[in-house]
């Protein structure tokens, strides 16, 4: 298919998005990620029945926390797509990359002394 998408993305594979933990998502931002998106299976297609539904709820909860602490929720999102939707994956990567570029680098990556 030779699809092109931004090289800025680092893919972390998980056995199911249902294993996503709030702590992991917060940690990615603390470790310097400018943006994170979780790509779960299509709703109704979860091999473990509700893994993607649970992941979506957790992502939304972390978005709430990020909003509450002034980081903003836009740097995190959840998308549903199947393993066969390579085209859609490339689109989402482009969409997220554009969104993050617009937002700029994560305020947590500012050097000491700079104001967030």
């Amino acid at each position, binding site marked *: 298919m030779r699809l092109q998408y931004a090289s800025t993305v680092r893919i972390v594979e998980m056995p199911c998005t249902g294993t996503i933990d709030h702590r992991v998502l917060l940690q990615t931002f603390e470790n310097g990620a400018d943006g994170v998106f979780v790509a779960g299976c299509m709703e109704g297609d979860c091999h473990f029945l509700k893994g993607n539904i649970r992941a979506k709820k957790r992502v939304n909860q972390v978005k709430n*926390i990020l909003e509450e602490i002034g980081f903003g929720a836009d740097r995190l999102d959840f998308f549903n797509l199947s393993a066969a939707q390579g085209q859609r994956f490339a689109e989402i990567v482009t969409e997220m990359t554009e969104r993050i570029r617009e937002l700029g680098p994560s305020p947590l990556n500012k050097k000491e002394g700079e104001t967030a």
Partner: protein
Amino acid sequence: MIIAQQKPIQDIASMIDDCNKVLLVGCAGCVTVCLAGGEKETDILAASLRIKRKLENKPLETVTCVATRQCDPEYVETLDSYVKDVDAVISLACGVGVQYLAERFTDKWVVPALNTKFIGGSVTHGEWEERCGLCGDCVLHRTGGICPIIRCSKSILNGPCGGSQYGKCEISKDVECAWHLIYERMKALGKLDKLMEYQPPKDWSKSRDGGPRKAIREDVMIG
């Protein structure tokens, strides 16, 4: 169990505004079960506070640990080594745990991360309901196992009152009338006659009266 809920992060952050290093102590008791102050919630709060403070250019160092129970001195003592070099201790326990930490660590600023709500149980995963009013003189044997003290909005002992409509309480269509439930259950059990038995006025002196209550079991006391 005791049901608690986390305070807004902003409120917790303002309590430790002048601190550079804090210890967050979770509790493996009730608040772990009601998903308010267990290991996971402690780590999430610590990360949230660190991010918030970094955004404000005032980085915060956090240490986290979970006590088996914060309401037991023997487990609070195990926290001694964690507390030494922190400016404040954030307790993710119920109000009891916070007080036990404050009593143990007299020179530390101990603050609560949770609001202690009530004594209750799970309705479904993620939902908890109040079930005990801590009146100190249980009447459940007379009311078919349904507590009129906490589940009746008026805590009346001879209901239902005039506000009971089709099994619901007048305060909300989502609140069941406890006395309607009691009547239906006693009827199903064939024990309606029990409700007709004369009952003396409830002894409220065993409830929240005369200061904090104590319970003593001399046979298990050591020393």
